[in-house]
């Protein structure tokens, strides 16, 4: 039987175990509670101001007439251009780094730099976009310049997460494919990508969620707040929801806080729909396997 010293030690270990269990649980609660408070606050403030007029009107100096139409359409078009661009370039880069260029000096160089790029503040991307797209390539303060800037911003995220997804495909599957006489391209398209797709989709969700909420770099590139028309071509001026919301939240009139809250609700719904669509695509592909 255990003696007194051992019994005391066991009791101490049990207490420590319980303590850490509670600490970890409270950390989780902290995050959930904060998120819940945020959502409740937004819903309480903004739900009342969310109606059809809000969705179909342009911005205005008068709170009751302010609408999110221009910003909504701007964000939509921004995502429509950014998403395929960043997906194609990002996944192609990941494929090159993992399948073709593995262990070469070039790919090691690229690898280090991509990780660094992921940490660069978004405002720096804004300045890059201003110099290269707006001025150098003469795109002006346009939707296209904004979309290209966003593409560059989220590219590192897609590249890294796609690489991770490709890495999880076991080498034994590639070996089986090669042993049957397939070349590298066939193996990538028929074996690697289908297996890696769920992970790649998750990475796309993460990166596009970041893009949809960016404000500062788009201000630098020229998205303005008072836009009273819808962009008819990629070279038109534009605005996006985060900028519109920021603009409203900065207004002196108290009612504009509620308008801003309504805008946040619309942004969140748009974000959730985009994610739901990506998850739907991912699940559909997973079932096929």
């Amino acid at each position: 039987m255990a003696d007194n010293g051992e019994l005391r030690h066991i009791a101490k270990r049990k207490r420590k175990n319980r303590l850490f269990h509670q600490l970890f649980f409270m950390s989780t609660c902290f995050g959930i509670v904060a998120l819940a408070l945020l959502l409740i606050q937004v819903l309480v403030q903004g739900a009342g101001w969310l109606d059809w007029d809000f969705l179909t009107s342009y911005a205005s100096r008068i709170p009751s007439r302010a609408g999110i139409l221009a910003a909504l359409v701007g964000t939509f078009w921004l995502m429509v251009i950014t998403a395929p661009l960043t997906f194609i370039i990002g996944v192609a880069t990941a494929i090159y780094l993992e399948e073709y260029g593995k262990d070469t000096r070039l790919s090691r160089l690229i690898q280090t730099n991509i990780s660094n790029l992921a940490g660069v503040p978004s405002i720096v991307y804004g300045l890059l976009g201003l110099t290269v797209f707006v001025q150098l390539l003469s795109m002006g303060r346009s939707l296209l310049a904004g979309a290209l800037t966003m593409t560059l911003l989220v590219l590192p995220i897609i590249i890294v997460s796609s690489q991770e997804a490709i890495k999880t495909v076991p080498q034994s599957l590639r070996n089986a494919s090669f042993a049957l006489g397939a070349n590298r391209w066939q193996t990538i398209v028929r074996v690697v990508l289908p297996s890696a797709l769920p992970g790649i989709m998750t990475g796309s969700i993460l990166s596009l969620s970041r893009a949809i909420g960016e404000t500062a770099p788009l201000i630098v590139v020229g998205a303005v707040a008072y836009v009273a028309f819808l962009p008819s071509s990629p070279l038109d001026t534009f605005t996006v929801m985060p900028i519109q919301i920021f603009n409203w939240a900065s207004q002196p009139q108290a009612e504009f806080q509620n308008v801003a809250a309504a805008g946040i609700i619309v942004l969140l719904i748009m974000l959730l729909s985009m994610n739901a669509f990506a998850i739907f695509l991912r699940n559909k592909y997973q079932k096929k396997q």
Partner: protein
Amino acid sequence: MSIVSINKLNLYYSEFHALKNVDMSIEEKSVMAFIGPSGCGKSTLLRTLNRMNDMINGIRIEGEVKISGQNIYSPDVNVELLRKNIGMVFQQPNPFPKSIYDNIAYGPRIHGIRDKAQLDHIVESSLKAAALWTEVSDNLKKSAYGLSGGQQQRLCIARALAVNPQILLMDEPTSALDPISTLKIEELIRELRERYTIVIVTHNMQQAARISDYTSFFLNGEVIESDQTDKIFTTPTDQRTEDYITGRFG
């Protein structure tokens, strides 16, 4: 009639001399077993035959490997066609995360066969040749991952046979399987010998004695002895062969 002829083959993994002056002939439509302690070059030589070693960095090969009279390392050889002609089955079953049908049809599709009727026929005959047809014919759309280990390995054999190879390479195909599956696959190998040339690496000497016509004994990258199985296991020429077979080292 020898279908594989290896002459003065030397293979280096960077500085490490993995295969030393290997000379060997493999008879058509027979089973050749490679035996020997771990790490002595059996799998390396096996992978040399279908040039799977090409994918390893820092590999250097000297000497000649001829299959059906043609040196497979000559620059005008199409590696993909070579591998179509030489099937490979690995130690751990590695079916693709696809349906049984798509696993078998993978090889033919890679090489350009698209006609559904043709693919159906190939899938059925490959599964029959691998003694798996009766167990899976009711639902070919089922995922390959739903099969047992032994069934998965037979699926991999069927998949390799689907591209109609002349030679089948097997790298310890039963070491990860239970005894009953092992027995089934050994029976299968005895049947397949009528149509294919089979080279099998095995750690299990009794297995080599049971199923092979010829055996090669490897030690430290050299082929010490290569002869008919009966002879190797009853009257080996080299003392080292005898020591290994009687279990004095392993």
